[in-house]
């Protein structure tokens, strides 16, 4: 399983702050994003289209083609606005 964590407006669109997704044949973060559709509301998929979101794997920034492992925690992070 991969645990996908969602934040800010993505969390609100998904109606949840986390989704568990079976590893299946996923190998990279791109595979995960491609396979999200059945697990989350269409509005979230729509919001991810502009690719402004960043990805973290196990709480570190990662690329869209970063390798996944079973038990990984993947964050989908909208553009940040702290400080």
């Amino acid at each position: 399983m991969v645990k996908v964590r969602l934040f800010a407006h993505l969390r609100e669109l998904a109606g949840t702050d986390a989704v568990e997704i079976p590893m299946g044949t996923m190998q990279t973060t791109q595979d995960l994003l491609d396979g999200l559709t059945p697990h989350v509301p269409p509005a979230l998929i729509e919001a991810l289209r502009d690719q402004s979101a960043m990805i973290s794997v196990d709480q570190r920034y990662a690329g869209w083609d970063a390798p996944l492992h079973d038990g990984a925690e993947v964050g989908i992070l909208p553009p940040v606005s702290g400080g």
Partner: protein
Amino acid sequence: MFEIVDSPFEPDPYYQQARAAAPHAGALVMFTGLVRDLYQADQGEQITHLELEHYPGMTESICESIIADAMQRFEISYVQVVHRVGKILANEHIVLVLVAASHRRAAFDAAQYIMDFLKTDAPFWKKEVGARGAHWLGLKRKDQQAAERWRALSTNSGSSHDKQ
């Protein structure tokens, strides 16, 4: 070094702590970011408060890494960063950065460096809440450029907190 707080804080206790911890420093720079008083958002709507969300765990490791980079890059002897989360009202503090050094230039540079990367790399999200609704803010272009300025100055290829 880095602290996340979920209720209002005042800078002075942190200032006194820095002063006590760095008695040989001579120069202290403190930056604070506050919620402006009942400001108008871009759409002209009156803002009643902010909501700050973050990614617990990742926030700490990113911010500690930014601070470690600053300690390595500049001749400074002490850093404290505090960031507020949760519901934040007008005139309350959002962020505090405190740097002590022997020379003011290093303290000023380090405080700016930390703020610039905190803005671009730390996983915080700010929601403006007004009478007619709420919306999430995104990273400002100005903040993106501020961090790029440091990256351009770097001789090494990147820091541990860098986004890919």
